[in-house]
């Protein structure tokens, strides 16, 4: 399907987006989704697998589907295969098996047509240290043959301003801090209007202020209709920013859903703070509270559908001294650990 320039997006094509829009955690996304112009998911992988020459399977039959207009958080511990997946998405490395589709076209076959519409930041910033920030931007833009040389300098200026580097544009990258390099890497991705941004750990090395700025920037870009695919291990970032998330563990995709869905699955737990641990445990077991865990000062478990006021009354009746009583909602981190079966240790 080809549009004549100037024609507004076809309502027929965007209609399909209604489905993805409603999945978004925020109401505004439904509207921004329509700017994505097509209902095709910008990132699709089928059975994507990468086996390194060492025999190690870094990515193991991953089926990703990133809805248009979403801010998609790609999570996983270090070494879980996130960056390898991203490299395959962008055609930097060849999959051992499986397929990648970016913006509806097969990768890496269609990379020359697709990648100009994709802004990418892969595994940390990489620049010519002996050149200025601006010169670096100009070089990477010159490598893209669809980029207009007449507007190159102006676009570089805008991109630098957007990431707050205007004052450092003429400084050699050698003298940049890690945070500044990270900003410059984001500026490379912003040199052109993109339909998709693939950002690998975009806030790595940034101070809290910088992290906040990048978050705002990502929201702004998403509002303009750009789909954002961002890998991160900062769960707070995901909670604040993302509409969708996928979790990788040991090369496998263990979960993929909307944030709203992920949150709703985090079932609250009953936590009783008491010196009478044994008695409390017995009482709660008797009442049908599942998955009980006893720590030094607390007993906690899954109350299921049991009314908690009844539970409190039962504990009091059983002469359990209650120092604290309530429901606690587990954090995303707990869910993450439950999914990956590990903390942030490097996967084997």
């Amino acid at each position, binding site marked *: *399907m*080809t*549009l*004549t*320039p*100037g*024609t*507004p*997006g076809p309502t027929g*094509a965007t209609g399909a987006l209604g489905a993805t829009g409603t999945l978004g955690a925020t109401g505004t996304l439904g509207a921004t989704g329509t700017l*994505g*112009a*097509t209902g*095709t998911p910008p990132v699709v992988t089928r059975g994507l697998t990468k086996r390194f020459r060492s025999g190690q399977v870094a990515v193991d039959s991953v089926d990703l589907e990133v809805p248009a207009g979403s801010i998609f958080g790609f999570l996983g511990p270090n070494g879980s295969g996130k960056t390898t997946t991203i*490299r395959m998405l*962008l*055609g*930097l*490395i*060849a999959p051992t098996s499986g397929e990648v589709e970016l*913006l*509806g076209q097969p990768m890496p076959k269609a*990379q*020359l*047509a697709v*990648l*100009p*519409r*994709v802004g*990418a930041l*892969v*595994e*940390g*910033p*990489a*620049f*010519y*240290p*002996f*050149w200025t920030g601006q*010169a670096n931007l*100009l*070089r*990477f*833009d*010159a*490598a*893209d*043959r*669809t*980029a*207009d*040389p007449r507007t190159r300098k102006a676009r570089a200026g805008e991109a630098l301003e957007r990431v707050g580097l205007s004052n450092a544009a003429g400084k050699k990258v050698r003298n940049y801090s890690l945070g500044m390099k990270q900003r410059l890497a984001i500026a*490379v991705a912003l040199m*052109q*209007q993109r*339909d998709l941004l693939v950002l690998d750990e975009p806030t790595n090395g940034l101070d809290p202020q910088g992290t906040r700025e990048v978050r705002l920037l990502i929201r702004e870009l998403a509002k303009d209709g750009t789909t954002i695919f961002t890998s991160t291990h900062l769960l707070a970032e995901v909670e604040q920013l993302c509409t969708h998330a996928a979790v990788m563990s040991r090369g496998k995709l263990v979960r993929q859903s909307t944030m709203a869905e992920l949150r709703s699955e985090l079932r609250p737990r009953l936590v009783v703070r008491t010196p009478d641990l044994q008695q409390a445990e017995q009482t709660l077991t008797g009442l049908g509270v599942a998955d009980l865990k006893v720590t030094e000062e607390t007993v906690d478990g899954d109350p299921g559908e049991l009314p908690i006021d009844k539970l409190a009354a039962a504990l009091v009746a059983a002469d359990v001294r209650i120092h604290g009583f309530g429901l606690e909602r587990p954090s995303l981190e707990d869910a993450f650990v439950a999914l990956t079966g590990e903390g942030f240790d490097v996967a084997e």
Partner: protein
Amino acid sequence: MTDSVEAGRPSAGRHTVALFASELHLVFGRARTWVLLAVLAAVPIMVGVAIRLSGSSGDDAQGFLGQVAGNGLFLVVASLALSLPFFLPTAVTVISGESLAGEASLGTLRNLMTAPAGRSRLLAAKMVALAVFCLAATMTIWLSGLIAGVVLFPVGDVVLLTGTTVSLGDGLLRAFGIAILIAASLLGLAGIGLFVSSLTSTPLAAMAATFGAFIVFGILGAIPQIDVIHPWLLMYGWTSFADLLRDPPYWDSIVRNLLLQAAYLAVFYAAAWARITSRDING
């Protein structure tokens, strides 16, 4: 599918030249390149000053060096000839070893790939920049030799190897032709360097390996027992440039050298292409 964003974009293939220009900027925008060129520019000056200070007419000196004191123009030819066995190959080795391995070690290769530069196009841009560097290197010697020659020695009509005398302008043109021929002679080595550079992410290793290959060619060329393969060695025809100083120029060995360089370039460029288009960019 096309959307409004893409419709506002210039069509693909319109600004192909930009990468080639950027590549030249990368090579010639580095202090290292200018240091190499400065060293090459110093060769004629050193040789010229040394001959001038020695005060001897140099009649007992061999080849082009012996003619420098009599005609400054020969400083150009003598300097080119003196730089050919070592200085020029070293410079080409440094620049070609850096070309792809340097990008890989900085990580900028992945930025170029996702830009997208296109792997074949990037390789072509690298090779063109290398060829331009080879030419810049010999032209530097040509220019520096001409200036030093005019300043330090008398200049006049040129007596060729065949004994014919030609005008100064003709002599200058022939010296210019020699600079171009020597630049072309370096292309085979540049191709080897480009290929080696595509294999590794360590520029220093690429430079060392390329220079190592150059030395191996030199050693093979020095072993008389294997003289059957000598005509096929990289440097076999490197001295053919002197045939341009005959009247009429003796083209056979010149053309043969150019063909040999083209063959080396084609083989190693193809190997580099096979490597870069299939390589996993992990750096």
